[in-house]
């Protein structure tokens, strides 16, 4: 059934976004610049992991049969993952991590607020729960963008580099994949493209306080993650994330 297929794809897309970014951020565990920020970034990872679990559990129900949250996270291949390219990019330095979190949280905040009104009650319930957590992520990452952008010459330069590295992955956030268009036509979601203007305003406001310029020439936007065409980095994350289940399939402890 096409209806359910698109909804499953979309739910997996939301789950994959959260799981992959959670995994990326967790690379900072024990390596954060100061203890409080190490704790903050790993708290954010934990929130994202919780969101991923909720979405995977729901996808497993929609798929039916023997599907489970663990199988969806650990047994799928790279080309089956539907996360945005932004989520899988390397953690880089603290500026890259902060900028990505800010860009992503600003997007997720608007997306979840919209999704909380979805006609699909489970998606709406997960989103209205998660948006409370994302509010904290957005505040925290905005404050760091300002602190680094309006900080020293070094921190400012690193933020400028981070913008250069990551901006090309922002276009994809607002470009609906075929499964998104499908469920949008069915009235289940409102559509990501409607969020872009408010998102850019959020980015612009924080950037201006951070003395950072919004890229004027947006240039080429990389796409493909939402439909399973990824950068080389996703394979490496999965190699680490799925290692145990690949070596000992279905192992439990």
């Amino acid at each position, binding site marked *: 059934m096409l209806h359910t297929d698109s909804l499953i794809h979309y739910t997996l897309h939301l789950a994959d976004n959260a799981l992959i970014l959670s995994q990326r951020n967790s690379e900072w565990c024990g390596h954060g610049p100061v203890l*409080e920020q190490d*704790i903050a970034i790993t708290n*954010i990872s934990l929130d994202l992991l*919780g969101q991923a679990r909720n979405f995977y559990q729901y996808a497993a129900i929609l798929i039916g049969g023997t599907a489970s949250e663990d199988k969806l996270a650990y047994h799928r291949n790279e080309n089956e993952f539907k996360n945005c390219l932004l989520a899988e990019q390397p953690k880089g330095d603290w500026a890259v991590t902060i900028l990505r979190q800010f860009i992503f949280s600003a997007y997720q905040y608007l997306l979840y607020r919209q999704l909380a009104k979805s006609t699909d009650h489970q998606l709406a*319930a997960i989103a209205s729960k998660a948006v409370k957590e994302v509010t*904290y992520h957005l505040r925290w990452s*905005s404050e760091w963008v300002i602190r680094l952008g309006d900080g020293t010459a070094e921190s400012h330069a690193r933020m400028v580099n981070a913008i250069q590295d990551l901006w090309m992955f922002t276009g994809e956030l607002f470009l609906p994949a075929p499964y998104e268009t499908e469920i949008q036509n069915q009235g289940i979601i409102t559509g990501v493209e409607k969020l872009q203007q408010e998102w850019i305003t959020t980015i612009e406001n924080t950037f201006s306080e951070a003395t950072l310029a919004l890229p004027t020439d947006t240039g080429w936007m990389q796409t493909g993650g939402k439909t399973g065409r990824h950068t080389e980095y996703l394979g490496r994350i999965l190699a680490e994330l799925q290692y145990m289940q690949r070596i000992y399939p279905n192992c439990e402890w």
Partner: protein
Amino acid sequence: MDADTIQIKAAWKILEQVADPEVPVLTVIDLGIIRHIDIVEHRLQITITPTYTGCPAMDVMSMGIRMALLENGFKHIEIKQVLSPAWTTDWMSESGKQKLKAYGIAPPNTTQAVCTPQSFQQEESIQCPLCNSYHTQLISQFGSTACKALYKCDDCKEPFDYFKCH
């Protein structure tokens, strides 16, 4: 009272003994995570709502609920998790808030305009749980568990946890 009502009342009483593993002064009742207790086809059905999406204590609390009920003679127990309506710290009991404070954690303020994404917004005024001063400052939005933020008291100089509004 019919048999079902008596059982449900007994179950509520038992759950007063089940503590949050991360903040052991609070019970699951204090936290306000128990939404309903019903008897459905001779099974005791407990409906709980998670505090934080990724909170690892939720699994432990579910297990604690099951264990406590089993120990007290309930045999057929079903624990159902619902996400909607989303849990809020406003559901925490008044006695729970008092217990938190006595334990050295500042209890959550009532949910208010503070939970907004604006950066560097005016901070909530949080009372130091040790010396009751409002002369405190935020150290970090994120603390040792998902539900807490780190503060410092400028009067007694002690650092403390704040159970953040959610």
